[in-house]
């Protein structure tokens, strides 16, 4: 017997592809390079409008603020700004207002948390039981105050909280002079802001709850969990990214910024600075006292301060929140 085993060759292409010969054509190479460059530029062109807006409206003022914080200037175009070095910062930290305003901002944050976290979660959980159109109706009802202009609501609340004829005092039988006593004024500003943002927070929480896969609650109920156990062990942990977002908003946005129109139209920071928070202080320094340098220094300090707070909160939230993926 004669013969031998031959391996079956692996598949190959029938005709080998010849690499195109490298021709020394400079023109073509240059054109190819230009085309590649052109293609690389396109995405950045799309970014230009947004980046332009950011630079003009955010970063340039930021840099200018930082710059003004080293000058003494009364905002008058005819007056020159004189460089004063770190004087403005020195003044800022020696004046008693800064510490007081930070403290009151903190109180406002604490006072707002029930409106931005506790009540929205309770309302969100309860309104899940309501089905269909009624649920949208309830949510719209709660959302409505958010659409009222702050100045308009200030007028209404001023009326409601008026010491003698106001509905609140008449209903409770008290004689508190809401906007002219220290603590009542702070409570009133915080409460009205809370009433304002409550609808927003409820909608955010409702969206957060709706994004939780209903399979988890169903699986848990088959596993034997009671409703309360499902809420505590599954719903709230899975809602944590939403809650962290609301805490961040309360700290960075609602308490310092959204209180501003109410403070300005109801108490002007008073009585005796009782409702002056950091943003109102800034406004007082800059626009009322025409002290651009001091206001800029305060602006820079608050920018850095809130930046640090935001960074810490984000760092915590990364460790605390659960992302369902």
């Amino acid at each position, binding site marked *: 017997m004669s013969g031998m085993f031959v391996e079956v060759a692996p598949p190959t292409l029938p005709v080998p592809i010849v690499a195109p010969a490298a021709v020394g054509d400079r023109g073509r190479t240059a054109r190819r390079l230009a085309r590649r460059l052109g293609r690389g530029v396109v995405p950045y062109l799309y970014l230009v409008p947004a980046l332009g807006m950011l630079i003009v409206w955010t970063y340039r003022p930021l840099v200018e603020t930082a710059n003004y914080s080293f000058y003494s200037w009364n905002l008058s175009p005819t007056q020159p700004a004189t460089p004063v070095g770190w004087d403005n910062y020195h003044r800022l930290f020696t004046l008693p207002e800064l510490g007081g305003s930070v403290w009151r901002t903190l109180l406002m944050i604490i006072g707002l948390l029930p409106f931005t976290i506790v009540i929205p979660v309770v309302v969100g959980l309860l309104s899940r039981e309501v089905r269909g159109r009624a649920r949208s109706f309830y949510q719209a009802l709660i959302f409505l105050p958010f659409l009222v202009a702050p100045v308009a609501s200030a007028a209404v609340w001023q009326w409601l909280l008026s010491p003698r004829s106001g509905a609140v005092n008449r209903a409770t039988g008290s004689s508190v002079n809401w906007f002219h006593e220290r603590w009542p004024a702070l409570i009133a500003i915080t409460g009205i802001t809370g009433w304002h943002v409550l609808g927003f927070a409820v909608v955010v929480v409702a969206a957060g709850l709706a994004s939780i*896969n209903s399979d988890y609650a169903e*699986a848990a*109920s*088959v596993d034997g969990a009671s409703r309360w156990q499902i809420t505590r062990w*599954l719903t709230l942990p899975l809602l944590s990214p939403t809650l962290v977002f609301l805490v961040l908003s309360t700290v960075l946005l609602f308490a310092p910024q959204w209180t501003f129109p109410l403070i300005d139209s109801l108490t002007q920071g008073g009585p005796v600075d009782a409702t002056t928070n950091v943003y109102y202080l800034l406004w007082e320094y800059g626009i009322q006292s025409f002290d651009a340098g001091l206001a800029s220094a305060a602006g820079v300090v608050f920018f850095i301060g809130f930046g640090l707070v935001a960074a810490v909160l984000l760092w915590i939230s990364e460790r605390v929140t659960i992302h369902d*993926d």
Partner: protein
Amino acid sequence: MSRITVENVTRRYGDVRAVDGVSLDVAHGDFLVLLGPSGCGKSTLLRMIAGLVPPSDGRVLVDGRDVTETPARDRDLAMVFQSYALYPHLTVARNIGFPLRTRRQRRAEISARVAEVADILDLGKLLDRRPRELSGGQRQRVALGRALVRDPGAFLMDEPLSNLDAQLRTATRTEITELHHRLGRTFVYVTHDQVEAMTMATSVAVLNHGRLEQVGTPTEVYDTPASAFVAGFLGSPPMNLLDAEVVARDGRLHAVAAGVDVPLGLGDPGQQGEPGKQGEPGEQVRRPAVLGIRPEHLSLRPAASDGAAPEATLRGTVRTIENLGSEEIAHCRVGAAEVAVRARRPAGFTVGEAVVLTVRPEHTHLFDRESGRRLVWRPDRDAPIPAARVPVAT
């Protein structure tokens, strides 16, 4: 011990009846597969058994106890979801231990039991991981572990293998079957995959448009489908269904259509010799029906020997041939219908060639054209029309 009974259960969503008057009895230790195409109501039925969806009508009983109004958590059933529904913020160990935690068991007991289950499912090394750090197959096993951990009366599974790749699906199928043998518990398993149904079930319930088409062992459901729907759903390719007429010729019944003349092996030869009773000589009664033949029951006979075989034929042309490796499937045109033929390779089909296919009478099925139900022959001298429509007992 868990025997699950579903009595005349209906679930309506607006005007749509997702489940329509279904009654089932799942004996203790049974592996019942609810099979049907998507939208047939099988998942809704399972969720009604689990207590996640309340029925609009009817009752659900577990061990004879009416649980229709009982919340899911008190039904002593465990369920594996299609999405697995693993709690994303909990580790594998806490996911598996969750059902015990809800029952306020002690921590030591829970971890001992979790370790036991993890051992069975080979999850020991993954106990500290979170679901997102697991592969699809591992997630599936964790979901199974969570169901196993508290030793429930019955297991409900909603397409648990549909998110796995083909290889893993086959392996897990075997594991679940072994688990069923080992535990001896009742399993109710939802799938649209007939292979899962055929290989795992002790009984199969085929659903269509919310109604129960047939309940039986996999063999019964495949060999004697109770309706044209079941016949057309099971098998790959499914049973060939051809509109035909049943004709009595010389006392024997034939199914006749364009290109089709198949003796059904039914009828009474004693009736021979009454030609022309209904008109045509030699042919008597005509009854419209649907003729069903499984692709593997058709065999090819070369067209040349045509003349020598007068009986049992479908004549057509081969249109396409699919090579499955061990077998091939020829799609033929017979009259106006498409007929698939399954045969071992090489079967000798050529595209475009005229073929004559034969089938043995015992491999033919007849269905009513209107209702789609299976037609069963009941010999009766007084009734010459073979129309005895006997609903197959379920």
